[in-house]
């Protein structure tokens, strides 16, 4: 299985889940807990924004003399 790419959506979602687990453990002091909380909320907002603002990019591959050319997909 392929490694998860750094800074990918999946990687950052995993990071968010780790922050939740970390905060829920209750092992840290108030100051660090606040820091974890703020980091988590910022990450969550960032992920949500990315999802809401994403626009699908569709391309078409055309084989031409053994080479693959990429072109924008035009919906016919």
């Amino acid at each position, binding site marked *: 299985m392929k490694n998860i790419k750094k800074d990918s*959506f999946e990687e950052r979602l995993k990071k968010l889940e780790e922050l*939740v687990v970390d*905060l829920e453990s209750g092992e840290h002091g*108030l100051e660090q807990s606040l820091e974890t*909380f703020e980091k988590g*909320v910022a990450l969550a907002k960032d992920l949500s924004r990315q*999802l809401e603002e994403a626009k699908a990019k569709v391309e078409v591959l055309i084989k031409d003399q053994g080479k*693959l050319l990429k072109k924008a997909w035009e919906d016919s």
Partner: protein
Amino acid sequence: MAKASAAPSAGARIYTVSEVNGLIHDLLENSLPEIWMEGEVSNCKLYPSGHTYLTLKDEEAQIRAVLFKGAALGLKFKPEDGLKVLVRGRASSYVKRGDLQFVVSWMEPREKGALQLAFEQLKARLAAEGLFDESRKKPLPAFPSCVGVVTSGQGAAVHDMISVLGRRWPLARVLIYPVKVQGEGAAEEIAGAVRDFNEFFPETDVLLVGRGGGSMEDLWAFNEETAARAVAESKIPVVSCVGHETDFTIADFVADQRAPTPSAAAELAAPDRRAVLGQIESREQELAAALREKIQVLSERLSRAASHPLLQSPERIYEDRTRFLDDLWMRLEDGAAQALLRAKQALAMGAAKLEAYSPLKVLGRGYAIAEKLPHLEIIRSAGQVRPGDRLRLRLAEGRIECEVAMTEGNGLPPKDIGGKP
């Protein structure tokens, strides 16, 4: 009745073996051009030349037959022993050996369709190779960033997939690789596209390979070995989607996951954005809850600490401390009493020794001790008194009180001479 003669009659023609075999060959070929025949296959063997030699038989008779390479290529299935077939061909002979041989130009299975049989044969063969094993199935990515699509550039399938992917997971780049999905060369194009994705776009997270519905013949490319093998060998996980719900193709068996339709394949490959947004929101709520919990725990600890007796009445700190000090004091006093006692004893011993040097003895020689009234400081210097001060003089016997008339000499302030006498 003519007697059987051992010798050919005069003028009779004598043939060579080759001539006879040639005659038989021509006779057969001319009298039985193309006929249909049914029978059961046995002793079937494929030779390296590509020709297949077999026997066709019924309950009472059998005939040797050959399926030349060219004719075999036109068949979807492979002849195998026990198969009941209908063949078209001609009776012929192998001139060199004189063997009778039926040359098959077309063959089809008698009990089921040729495609159905071909499907079953390839399925059995690939299954035996382990290509359908669950252990080979690769998991699909949870959040793909690139989705490849191998299907026809026209038709509903490609549009369905694009619209589902765009709606559910617009984070993913979609690469469409248009291919022929039916007819001559379709299987090769499908296989080539799957291989090209693996070679040129290995970052593709998942491949959707399929087409919309059609007849078994229309879907046939997805049942061909070349397409099936390309899908099986793909390092990129493949979701197959060929035809409608009930259509199963070989590609479906070798794919990592099979979807009933192209839209369903897109749904399998891409998570639902709204569901993921909900997930993120849940994480946010969990963060808030965890922080609230943390603050709750801390404030409980604080109020517990505040309700501690010491913080409720801080003087208790001193109670403890003073008790400690009292204790210390008592021990000190005990120690001091002991020390005092020892000092007293030492003093008594010393006093006896001092008796010999008693100042009274000095006074006896005519000296006096002058003390200033009213506090009886011992006067050692004239500077300690002023005219008018009253003094008391101690003599060896008795005392005199008198007044200073004048002073003379040392005007420096007196040295501290310590406590009272």
